[in-house]
């Protein structure tokens, strides 16, 4: 069973691995053939060497932990507040009409535009970065949840009412379940956004994290570590996306897929 799974996994991905490998070979060759200076564009081995240096002195672990810590708190705080608010707005048309325009207005403002305010209010360190992540996740998440709830097929609600389901149970067993596919999509998209924003936020608001690593390596004229940092950012982004993707496989999400 496990061997089969592994085989399938490999069958699906071997071409992507091969292409990635070829790109790396081409890259390394081009750097040597065209004699590109390492400070302009380092080769693959140089980047690995730079990364190894970061691993050895412990900085890479520190920075990965710092970035993940900020994303965790910013993301979960935002989701924790946005989902209940979204459900509320989804079921109360009056409040949706009142509050939605404000959310819609704030949503397209890049979280990074809030940086000066975040720095002024919260100083430097974890708080401004968490705040920026919160903004990046909160507004889109409210909209995803609201539209998920507002779009629930009324038949479900009638059926629930016929069975005498009301109050707390109606929210947890019918409304939340019915809107879950949209909410999960929102969770996945906003986690990607959060990861994009944390790197940018750490370039300005803090003194640790993967964004800071890029700026710090740039200031130290270490292009190999700049690119090494980018590689790690991409890798973790991929892992995060994979984690949230697992949620889409839940039976309570799949029902909608099957129906579609």
């Amino acid at each position, binding site marked *: 069973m496990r061997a089969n799974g592994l085989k399938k996994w490999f069958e699906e991905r071997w071409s992507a691995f091969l292409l990635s490998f070829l790109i790396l070979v081409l890259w390394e060759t081009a750097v040597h053939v065209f004699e590109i*200076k390492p*400070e*302009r564009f380092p080769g693959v081995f140089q980047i690995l060497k730079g990364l190894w240096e970061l691993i050895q002195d*412990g900085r890479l*672990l*520190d920075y990965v*932990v*710092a970035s*993940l*810590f900020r994303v*965790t*708190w910013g993301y*979960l705080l935002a989701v924790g507040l946005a989902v209940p608010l979204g459900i509320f707005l989804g079921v109360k048309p009056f409040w949706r009409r009142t509050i939605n325009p404000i959310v819609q207005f704030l949503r397209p403002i890049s979280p990074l535009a809030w940086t*000066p305010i975040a*720095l*002024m209010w919260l*100083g*430097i*360190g*974890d708080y401004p970065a968490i705040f920026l992540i919160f903004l990046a996740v909160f507004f889109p998440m409210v909209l995803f949840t609201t539209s998920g709830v507002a779009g629930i097929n009324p038949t479900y609600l009638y059926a629930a009412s016929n069975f005498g389901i009301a109050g707390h149970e109606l929210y947890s*067993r019918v409304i939340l*379940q019915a809107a879950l596919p949209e909410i999960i999509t929102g969770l996945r998209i906003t986690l990607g956004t959060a990861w994009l924003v944390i790197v940018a936020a750490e370039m*300005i*608001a803090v*003194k*640790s994290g993967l964004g*800071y690593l890029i*700026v*710090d390596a*740039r*200031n*130290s*004229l*270490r292009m190999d570590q700049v690119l090494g940092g980018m590689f790690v950012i991409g890798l973790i982004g991929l892992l995060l996306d994979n984690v949230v993707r697992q*949620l889409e*496989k*839940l*039976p*309570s999400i799949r029902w909608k897929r099957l129906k579609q």
Partner: protein
Amino acid sequence: MGHIKANSPSPMNMKKLTIGQRIFLGVLLWIIFISGLHSWRNGELFASNVLRVGFVPITCHLLCPVTYELNKDIPFKPIKFTAWPEMCEALKSGELDMAFILAPLAIMLNAQGFPIKLVMLGHRNGTGLMVRKDAENADLNWLEHKTIAIPIRFSNQYLTLLDLLDEAHIPESSIKLVEMPPPDMPSSLAMGAVDAYIVGEPYAAAGELNGAGQILYLMKDIRPGFISSVLVVREDVLKKRKKDLQRLIQAFYKNGAWIEAHRKEAAAIGAAFYRLPNALIEHVLLSQPDRVLYNDLLPRKQEIEAMAASMQKRGLLKGNFDVNAFLDTSMIPEVSR
């Protein structure tokens, strides 16, 4: 996993958790794990008696790493910044007690009503005006219609560039100025994105060494005694901890003389602390003895007055500025005057 029903409530069987409960538990464990790891790896537990000093990895702030290395008995912590605005905010919010900061930026902060005192200079000279490698026989006139990078408007580099252009009768409107982080300047010059830049060391030397550009002027030759950064202290810290501050500032002063006598060692300390190539810092400190100077760090009233006047002239400072109230050289050793 698929065979477990998503909503099967199982209150009777605590061992069998629903998927929702599992996810909740997983998230909770992750929060505890990552928070614990973060506070272990990145937590900064400052002792209350430690003076926190902001700096940027440039040779103008070399006293910071050198003193940190030489005077382990003095409780202070250098905190590295990569951009000036964050440093200003950290100073304002009290996360820093003092900072090495660009002199015009310090003047502007003080003029805005933020209570800081200028206590000493970072170093003297240590700034270069660099031009493209292919600029033959370049002089000031060559700069006309060119794109020139400056670190930030609130810098003596910018003020001096404008003065130089005035001297050559080149109107500011005939050049294109761009604000740029200093580490990007050498590569921008190499790529032809800018034609020239004026910046503090080691980023002038970086352009010189990587072949991107050539020196048009070093400040030691055209503005001897040039001031780039100064050390400022929050007034509340000054009132509360004058004795500690005096000890640290006197150590900074003493170490200025130490750098002059041990330039090679000082370059090694700076390169390691800044994570910059040793050859680069050595070039700045050793190629010409007066390219950077650490032996006259007393800020003089007329120097700061002239800088404030220049800022007023360029529209960077409105109204009068009281230099006497801004300067506090009382902690500098008597022998330096």
